[in-house]
C-alpha cells in the first residue's frame, strides 16, 4: 500500500500512528495487528446506506487478555488513537464489524473466548467477549448440563457479550438479554479494571447471581455506550424445561394486527405465554427461505396482489405468530387451553402446533429452534429476498397496544411504499413493549437505490419520532440522528459522563451519538 493511501486516525500523524502500531505489536504480537487492506476488508463490509469511505478502519487489533486491553487503552490515550471494540463482530445490519468513523482502530475481541464458568445449579455463566453462542452451546451439550441459551437469529456466529451490550434480543423466555445479564468486568478508558455488581468483592461468590451489588447500579452504563470495554460478562441461563410446545397462529388480514396484540398483551404480562413472541408479516415469513423473484419481478414496492398471492401459494397469514409454552406437560396443557380459547373467539385465527405447524409454514422449524435456544442461520435468507447486500434494521419500540401497532404498521408501509421498498417486518413481543423490526432491504450496489434507502430510513426515524415512537437500536450511520430523538438533556448527561470517564475520547467516539466535549 502506498503511504498516501493509508487511513490514519483523525488528528494523528503517520509517524505517531507508526509508533502506536509498534507499541500495539509489543502488546499483542505482530500477527495480531492487522493493517493490510485485504486483512481489513471484512471490517469494511457495510450493509447500511452510508458511504464506504466514512467507515474505514486504520487497523485492527486482536487481543486475548484483559491486561492486553488495558495496555492498548493506555497506548490509545498516549497517541490519541480512537478504538472501536467488538466482541464477535456480527452486528450485521447495525454496522457489522466496521468502526463508527473512518480512522478508528478496531479492537476485535473474538479470540478472547474463554468460558470461565458455567454453574448448572444456579444456572449462570461467566464468559469472555469472543465466546459465540455456538461455543457456549457446544460446551453445555458436552458437559451434559440441562441448560438452554437464548440466541438472536444469527445464533451460532454471534455472541452473548456483543449482543447483550447492544441490548439485543432472542426468543425464549430469556429474550430480553440485558435483563438476564449479571455482573461485568470492564476496562475503563484510563486502563483501570472495574468489576460491577458483587464482582468488586475479592472471591465474591455471588457475582453471577445478584445483579445490583451495592450503591448505584452501573452495568447499564456499559451497554450501547462508549464508556468502557467489557472483558467478562455474567449471564443467566434457562433451565431446560421438562416439556416444550412451540406453536403457530396465522391471521389472514392486515387489520388483524390489532386483535392479535390485544389478545397477546395480557397473556404475555401474566406470563401465560412466557417467551419473546414473534408476529411476522407475510414478507418476512416467506423471505427467510424464498426470493422475491419467485413471486414478483417488478421494481418498487411489492404490490398487494403479490402479497395476497404469496399468502395463498405458501399457505401463510398476513400475520404469523410464533410462540411457545414451557414447563411440565400439565402446565403446558392448562396454558394451551387458555391460549386456544383466547385466540379462537373471533374465528379468524388458525392455530397449529407439532407436525401441522411444520406443514403450515416454511419458517416454523427455524422459529421453533430459536425459541428453544438452538443454533440456526435460516434467517440470513432475508438477504436473498431482493439481493444486492443492502440491509438496515429500523427498530422502533411500540407499546403492546393494538391501535398503536396498527398505526406503526400503516406508517411504516406508507413511508417504505413512497420510496419503493418492501415492508419486511416482524414484531418481537416483550412483556409490555414490542420491538417493531423492519428490515429495509435494498440493492447497495445501485447508488440511486442506496441514496433512496438512506432518505427512507431518515424519514422513518423522523415521522415515527413525530408520533412519539423512538427506536431501540440503530446502525452507525444513524446513531447521531437517533440520539437527537431522545433530547438534549439526555445527550448532555451522556456527554458529561463521557468527559469524566474518557477525557481523551478514545473509546468508540460516536457510539449511540456520544462524543466528548474535546
Amino acid at each position, binding site marked *: *500500500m*502506498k503511504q498516501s*493511501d493509508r487511513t490514519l486516525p483523525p488528528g494523528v500523524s503517520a509517524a505517531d500512528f507508526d509508533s502506536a502500531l509498534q507499541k500495539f505489536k509489543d502488546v499483542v504480537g505482530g500477527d495480531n495487528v*492487522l493493517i*493490510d*487492506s*485485504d*486483512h481489513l*476488508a*471484512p*471490517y469494511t*463490509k457495510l*450493509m447500511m446506506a452510508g458511504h464506504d469511505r466514512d467507515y474505514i478502519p486504520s487497523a*485492527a487489533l*486482536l487481543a486475548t487478555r484483559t491486561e492486553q486491553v488495558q495496555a492498548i487503552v493506555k497506548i490509545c490515550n498516549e497517541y490519541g488513537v480512537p478504538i472501536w471494540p467488538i466482541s464477535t*463482530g*456480527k452486528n*450485521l445490519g447495525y454496522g*457489522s*464489524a466496521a468502526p463508527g468513523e473512518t480512522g478508528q482502530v478496531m479492537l*476485535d475481541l*473474538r*479470540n478472547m473466548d474463554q468460558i470461565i464458568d458455567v454453574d448448572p445449579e444456579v444456572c449462570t455463566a461467566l464468559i469472555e467477549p469472543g465466546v459465540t453462542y*455456538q461455543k457456549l452451546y457446544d460446551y453445555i451439550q458436552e458437559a451434559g448440563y440441562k441448560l438452554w441459551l437464548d440466541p438472536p437469529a444469527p445464533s*451460532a*456466529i454471534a455472541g452473548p457479550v456483543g449482543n447483550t451490550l447492544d441490548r439485543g434480543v432472542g426468543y425464549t423466555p430469556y429474550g430480553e438479554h440485558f435483563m438476564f445479564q449479571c455482573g461485568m468486568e470492564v476496562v475503563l478508558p484510563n486502563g483501570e479494571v472495574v468489576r460491577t455488581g458483587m464482582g468488586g468483592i475479592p472471591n465474591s461468590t455471588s457475582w453471577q447471581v445478584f445483579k445490583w451489588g451495592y450503591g448505584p447500579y452501573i452495568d447499564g452504563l456499559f451497554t450501547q455506550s462508549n464508556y468502557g470495554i467489557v472483558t467478562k460478562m455474567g449471564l443467566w441461563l434457562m433451565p431446560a424445561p421438562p416439556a416444550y410446545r412451540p406453536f403457530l397462529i396465522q391471521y389472514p388480514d392486515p387489520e388483524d394486527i390489532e386483535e392479535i396484540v390485544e389478545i397477546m398483551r395480557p397473556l404475555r404480562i401474566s406470563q401465560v405465554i412466557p417467551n419473546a413472541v414473534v408476529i411476522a408479516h407475510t414478507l418476512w415469513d416467506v423471505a427467510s*427461505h*424464498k*426470493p422475491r423473484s419467485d413471486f414478483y419481478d417488478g421494481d418498487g414496492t411489492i404490490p398487494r396482489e403479490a402479497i395476497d398471492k404469496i399468502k395463498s401459494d405458501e399457505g401463510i397469514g398476513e400475520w404469523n405468530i410464533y410462540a411457545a409454552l414451557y414447563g411440565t406437560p400439565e402446565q403446558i396443557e392448562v396454558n394451551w387451553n387458555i391460549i386456544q380459547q383466547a385466540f379462537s373467539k373471533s374465528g379468524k385465527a388458525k392455530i397449529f402446533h407439532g407436525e401441522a405447524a*411444520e406443514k403450515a409454514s*416454511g419458517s*416454523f*422449524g*427455524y422459529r*421453533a*429452534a*430459536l425459541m*428453544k435456544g*438452538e*443454533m*440456526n*442461520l*435460516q434467517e*440470513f*435468507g*432475508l*438477504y*436473498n429476498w431482493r*439481493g*444486492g*447486500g443492502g440491509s438496515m434494521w429500523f427498530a422502533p419500540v411500540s407499546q403492546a397496544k393494538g391501535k398503536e401497532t396498527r398505526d406503526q404498521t400503516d406508517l411504516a408501509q406508507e413511508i417504505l411504499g413512497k420510496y419503493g421498498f418492501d415492508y419486511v417486518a416482524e414484531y418481537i413481543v416483550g412483556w409490555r413493549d414490542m420491538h417493531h423490526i423492519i428490515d429495509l432491504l435494498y*440493492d447497495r*450496489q*445501485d447508488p440511486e437505490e442506496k441514496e433512496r434507502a438512506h432518505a427512507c430510513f431518515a424519514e422513518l426515524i423522523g415521522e415515527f419520532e413525530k408520533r412519539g415512537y423512538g427506536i431501540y437500536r440503530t446502525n452507525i450511520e444513524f446513531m447521531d440522528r437517533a440520539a437527537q430523538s431522545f433530547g438534549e438533556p439526555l445527550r448532555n448527561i451522556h456527554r458529561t459522563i463521557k468527559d469524566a470517564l474518557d477525557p481523551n475520547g478514545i473509546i468508540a467516539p460516536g457510539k449511540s451519538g456520544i462524543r466528548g466535549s474535546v
Partner: protein
Amino acid sequence: MTLSRRELLKHGLALGSLAPFAVGLAAGEPTAPLMARRVAVYGPERASRALRQGFSRAGWQSTFAGRLNVLELARSRPGYWIAGFADDAELVLLTSLAAGRGRIVALGRHAPQAHSVRSWKTNSPVSFQESNPRDWRRDLGGLYAALADHTPLSPHADTRPGQRVVAAPRDAREHSFLIRV
C-alpha cells in the same frame, strides 16, 4: 441460499439442528488443502467446475468442496485458499467470518456480460472481461489464480492494462470470492 422446504428439512436447518448450509463435508474434515497453490472451490457444481478449470490452467490444484458451509469453515484451521460462488446470504456470512482470521483477496459480482471484480489486496477494481459468455467462469478462475499467485501484489500486478473496468452489475445474483482463511 434458496433452499426449498424439503431441502431445509433435509439439511436440518428447518429443524434447527447444527447442520450447516451444505452437507458436502464431514465435520472436522479439512475444507481445503494447506499446501500452496491448492484451492477449495465452493458453489454449484457446474459453475465451480469452470472456475476450477481456470485455476488448473494456471497450474493450481483444486478440489470441489460443495455448497458453502460457513459453520464448518468457521471451525477449520487457518491457512487455506477458498474460492467459489455464493448468493447474497452466504456472502454476508462468509465475509463476516473472515474478520480477524482471513484475507479477502477478491470479490466479484456477475451478471450476463457484466462483471465487476474488486481486489482487496490493492483495494481497487480489477479489469475483467469475459472472452466469450460460456467461459467467463473459467477466465475468472485464471484471474483469481493470478491474484493469489501475486500475493503480495504490486499495486499494478492485478490489473490487466487496456481492459475496461465494468461498473457493478445491477441485479447480479452471482457473487464470486477468493479468500485466504
